């Protein structure tokens, strides 16, 4: 199977039923997407597929490769994306993390949201974050970082 990850076309020799997360982490060495539950509940594995935030732990490889010219962005690739880089910068500025394990998935979802809606409502922000869990209680900082990213995007 072949598709684009972080701007580079990759060839993958894996079981079509394999969840994308393991392929990204172990076959392609993009470790920034993380295993949390394997059931799509926590969002630590979230990546962008054609601009949509998707939980890679429940996304089988066949569903990725069946799309025409799929493009995947992980946190590693988002750094080269203007909006992704800006969102990540806002998270660092606000020190919006404790352990940081959940944050990359959250940055990915927030980037997808701001690419779609540059000035989202509070309800739209909460909807985008509804598939993410954080255990350290960094939520208030994460929300501050999202606000800060929005301010940077809409001067």
């Amino acid at each position, binding site marked *: 199977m072949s598709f684009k990850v972080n701007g580079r076309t990759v060839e993958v020799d894996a079981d079509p039923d394999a969840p994308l997360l393991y392929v990204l982490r172990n076959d392609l060495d993009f*470790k920034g997407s*993380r295993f949390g539950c394997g059931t799509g509940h926590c969002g630590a594995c979230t990546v962008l597929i054609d601009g949509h935030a998707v939980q890679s732990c429940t996304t089988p490889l066949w569903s990725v490769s069946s799309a025409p010219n799929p493009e995947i962005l992980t946190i590693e690739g988002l750094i080269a994306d203007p909006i992704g880089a800006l969102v990540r910068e806002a998270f660092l500025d606000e020190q919006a993390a404790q*352990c940081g394990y959940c944050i990359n998935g959250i940055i990915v979802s927030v980037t997808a949201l701001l690419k779609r809606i540059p000035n989202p409502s509070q309800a739209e922000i909460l909807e985008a974050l509804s598939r993410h869990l954080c255990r350290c*209680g960094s939520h208030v900082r994460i929300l501050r970082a999202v606000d800060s990213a929005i301010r940077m995007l809409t001067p």
Partner: protein
Amino acid sequence: MKDLPSSIQKSPRLNQWIAIGPGKQITAYSGKVELGQGIGAALTQIACEELGLTPQQLQLVAGHTGCSPDELWTAGSQSIEVGGAALRCAGAQARALFARAAASVLGVAEESLRVERGIFSSAQTQRVTDYWSLAGEVDLSVEITGDAPLRSPCDYRIAGLSLARPDLPAKLSGAAFVHDFALPGMLHARVLRGPHTSCRLEPVAKEALAAALTALPGVTAVVHSGNFLAIAGADEEELVRALVKAQKIVGWTKPQKLCVQGEIEEMLPAMACESSVVHLAGAPQTPVTQHRARYSRPYLAHASIGPSCAVADPSGGPSSHLTIWSHTQGPHFLRDQIASALGREKNEVDVIHMPGAGCYGHNGADDVAFDAAFIAEMLGTPVRVQWMREDELSHSPFGSASLVEIEAGLDAGGKISSWHLQVWSHTHIKRPGWDEGINLLGAWAIEPAIPEPKDKDVSLPAGGGQRNAIAIYDLPHQAVTHHFITRSPLRVSALRSLGAYANTFAIESFLDELAAKVETDPVTFRLRHLADPRARAVIEAVAKASGWRQPGAEIANTGMGIGFGRYKNRSAYCAVVARVRVEEKVHVEKVWAVVDAGRVVNPDGLTNQIEGGIIQSLSWTLKEAVTWSESGITSQTWDGYPILTFDEVPEVEVLLLDRIDEPSLGCGEAAAGPTAAAVANAVAHALGVRARHLPLTAERLTRLIDET
């Protein structure tokens, strides 16, 4: 000899703490590891302040048994108090030794020297020198005396600033966690475990089991020793799919000591316990009114977002050095325990700390490190083990349940005249290195089995089940009875704040109940019983910040509540006000907190800890409880163990009272108890019903309203 910091007494030589290099850097060694609490930034600031360096000039190496000092565990809100004090002392002596060498080289008086950016200069000369030029002149293998003068906090330039955490950019980029660490030729492994820690493998022919498991696609090796069973393979994804099939092949016995789950307030007092009066002061005065109430908290899970993980490298053979990469809180204890369990010498094993997902106490980090070490030893190859979500929510030790009863009298003047608190709980600590024996899940399963040690709780003043059981108010009489339940139906150990969460929740809820009896405002009632000016200051400040219960500002179904505590009765002061709206469930709208943690090293780091402590406590208080059936733990997934979500998070405002002349106090766990009480008191204010048993779910709330 001066009263040296406890960590310095254990590692007394200066070169155990400070080394010149690499390059134009200085290395500071610490036993206090980065768990996401931001300690790396704060310790860097403390060391830089004493040494006269910029943060970029300092490299911090923490939690490596090969080179870092043994500072026990990174736990108990002790990293600034203990670890910071040690680095401050060591840094001051290093600076003093180098200053003496600099004075000699530059031909100036030592007192005339200043050090900035690692460069020593003096008004008496144009010439300068630095740490790196002087490295050959100074012997760092000397004993630390504690005689070197510490820099005055008034002169601080780096400590006291909100230095950004040095670890975050990497974590927000790609590989940074032990979960992301890989070695050439490494196998992935998963351990099969029953639904409860006491489950044993059903008797089975070993060869047949191994054959059945090896036949699964993705499994290249099986490790089976006693009740320890693991599968390994090169491809993690294939192995995880094989695990699902393997679990259907393997049978487990019923749990051995699992009682039927009931209400905590009924279960705990029925369990066998050892009772003792742990505190008695003053004599009861004659009351005009008496009141008694019981409060409880359930068993709670750490519920880290990333299941525990470790990598072990046996260096190619059973007799070689064993290296383990782990997100443990106690690298030296873990090394000692793994060495002992594997029949190795300590010096044949090293544990290297690497970041893991959120750590709030004794979670699965140590257990998975043993899993990886044992499998790696058996297979003679590097092994990475990551637990699955179900493992993390079933086999990580839980925080102990508690039941607290308080009985008090009030005198004619509306003051407390007698006070008796009783707490029923299990141990709140059973870490590797705590007390005798080996505390590693896998070590209890292998053959020959290593016996599980008996439970033993922490005694006062720190306390486990009785942490913060002594009310910090000025009372004419106070008695505390600890009913230590010697066995727990669930595996329990340290979870953030230990018994302080339940005890503070109970004490602070009860104070509101007493205040209501004498028709006194809860803030006024607290201040009536508090002389300590620092305690009064945080309460007064949080009342002011929150616009505490302004007359005429009441809104239907909305209430404000306060909770206060001084963590461990000797660390940070924390007062919390919560505003809640109660509809079909409790909505926490806003939380204010005021904290006095003495001299603040990193204000933003401290604020982050308090914010996080508040949110985590809200999650415990409103939603969480471990559940089980006679077969084992049933709250094994996020569906079964829901935690606070983004749409349930309130606005949070944290105010710090910086006290530059007071020693820094541990704060990481300070918010847990006060937050729970603030919410329960706000619910009582909003509805007039008293929630005494946690969690405060919609179901419990409805039951409570129906009963009232």
